[in-house]
């Protein structure tokens, strides 16, 4: 396994430092919002692995978030299970569900997979309402707010913030370890040229299902960290809009890198609030137009476009201003994806 570069370690170090310090410099309600950013980032990371690296489009990961959130909620509400036990259980439950869906997804691709996963998202509130004896139906379920454990001098909310971001760090690390090396190469190979990959001995059933399962694990954990700060779950919390939001976050952040998940999480959390500042009467118009503009000017997402810019900057050799008459060489071309 190749060692991480010094540059990467520095970047991660800075991110960790910023995250650690933020609660002390920003207003408390923002700390609260940043817990949701962690939740989104985890879920979006799942999509970056599944859709970005492995090419399987999912419009249904909100359903896995719902599963995770409700596992945590039901266990806490009905059996008093503490959150630190509930969230890992939610991860397992979502993972199993994800493997199952992944198996079904093996037969589907492109728009058909998009529909199948979208169906999952659309059907989720119906299922939650239907099994009301377990889920509390449309009345929803209230949860206990988080308290820091005895001996730790932090407000409940701050404690939850650090736990959420620590978990985020852990899942990012685990995911990085997972996709470095062979696993990641196999995922990408199956995305770019499945026939060649299979003829080289890559087992598509294993890798594609595993990618689905892992992304579902992430979404399940994210669901837990979505429900806990809200201290409430209801079918309205997990509509199909959530799945769409996750995809928007992944693409806007930059579907090709892990940093895209972080940026994507920030964007989907705060863009609606900014849209309201711009026009309180019709915030959707601002939000929708913002999406279109970002895609027009930054088609690889924010991080993706930043990276392209960096490559272009690095590739061009330094030019003496007056002497040379030849233009700098073209930047590395990024092949547009062909229609599948």
């Amino acid at each position, binding site marked *: 396994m190749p060692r991480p570069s010094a540059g990467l370690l520095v970047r991660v170090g800075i991110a960790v430092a910023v995250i650690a310090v933020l609660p002390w410099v920003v207003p408390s309600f923002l700390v609260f919002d940043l817990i949701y950013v962690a939740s989104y980032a985890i879920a979006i990371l799942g999509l970056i692995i599944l859709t970005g690296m492995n090419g399987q489009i999912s419009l249904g990961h909100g359903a896995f978030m719902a599963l995770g959130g409700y596992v945590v909620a039901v266990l806490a509400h009905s059996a008093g299970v503490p959150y630190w036990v509930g969230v890992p259980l939610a991860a397992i439950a979502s993972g199993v569900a994800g493997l199952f869906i992944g198996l079904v997804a093996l037969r589907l691709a492109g*728009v058909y997979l998009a529909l199948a996963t979208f169906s*999952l998202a659309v*059907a989720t509130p119906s299922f939650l309402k239907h099994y009301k004896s377990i889920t509390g139906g449309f009345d929803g379920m209230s949860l206990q707010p988080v308290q820091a454990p005895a001996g730790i001098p932090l407000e409940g909310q701050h404690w939850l913030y650090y736990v959420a971001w620590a978990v985020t760090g852990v899942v990012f690390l685990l995911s990085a370890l997972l996709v470095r090396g062979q696993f990641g190469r196999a995922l990408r190979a199956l995305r770019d040229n499945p026939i060649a990959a299979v003829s080289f001995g890559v087992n598509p059933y294993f890798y594609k299902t595993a990618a689905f399962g892992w992304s579902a694990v992430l979404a399940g954990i994210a669901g837990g960290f979505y429900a806990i700060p809200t201290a409430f779950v209801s079918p309205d919390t997990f509509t199909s809009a959530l799945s769409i939001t996750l995809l928007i976050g992944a693409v*806007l952040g930059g579907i090709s890198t892990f940093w895209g998940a972080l940026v994507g999480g920030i964007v989907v959390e705060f863009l609606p609030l900014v849209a309201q500042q711009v026009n309180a009467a*019709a915030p959707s*118009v601002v939000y*929708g137009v913002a*999406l279109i503009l970002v895609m027009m000017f930054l*088609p690889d997402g924010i991080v993706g476009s930043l990276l392209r810019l960096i490559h272009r900057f690095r590739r061009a050799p330094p030019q003496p201003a007056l002497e040379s008459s030849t233009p700098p060489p073209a930047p590395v071309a990024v092949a547009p994806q062909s229609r*599948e």
Partner: protein
Amino acid sequence: MHDLAQQIVSGLAQGSIFASLALALVLIYRAMGIVNFAQGELAMFTTYIAWQLTQMGLPIWLAFGVTVVVAFAGGVALERIVIRPVERANQLTVVIVSLGLFISINGLAGWFWGYIVKAFPTPFPTTPLQIFGVAFSAQDVGVIVVSVITLGLISLFFQKTKLGLAMRAAALYPEQSRVLGIRVGWMLALGWGLASAVGAISGIMIAPVVFLDPNMMQSVLVYAFAAAVLGGIESPIGAVVGGLVLGVAINLIGTYVEWIGNDLRLAAALAIIVIVLVVRPAGLFGRVAVQRV
């Protein structure tokens, strides 16, 4: 037996609503290879334009005609302005743009016309019809008839006209078409224009039944998407058949399968479609694309 017949007829009426929007979805997919999430909202927006025209005194059939033309022009313009910059980008980018359109057009309609539910004049007579004790309205029959006519016209256009052939070529083989002198970009714009026009027809047919409000197409979109995929995402016939089948299936399942009941109808329908896709990945009328290695 009578009830069964009534449920089937209701299902066909509802299914024709899905079918008409599914047609528009198929048109865009054939042209661009993506599902246009904004299709329903565009249809809703153009329907509001038709409504506005009738409020200004135009008779419904004239408003219908004007709106279809406006929708066509609007679709072309939208493609040139919003889609062209991201045409060459990967499909996900275009999907996000379509989502952005969805969200902003929905907000725009609410902003302009408000959210209060409005009646929409029906182009068909309102007297209810009865055949063998089964009730339906002229509207229901009208929607099916108009959908079938639209389907026929579209099929004729694509199969029998040079322009239609050029559009199909541009969608399937853009580079080769350019070499042959086909203006691929404008073919795409034309595709959007057609889809918008079909969407407008769909909206005007649907509005008298579901009543006009900015969110009227959202529930239809999910079903239309499902219908289009069920029928084979590239097949206009599939869209119509898929829509009708879906409409009837939902009604029958919801009514007669007790443990599913009303609230799981949509989930059950979608589950069936997923099962169909697993068995026949290209849908009922689709053809599986064979890739040469």
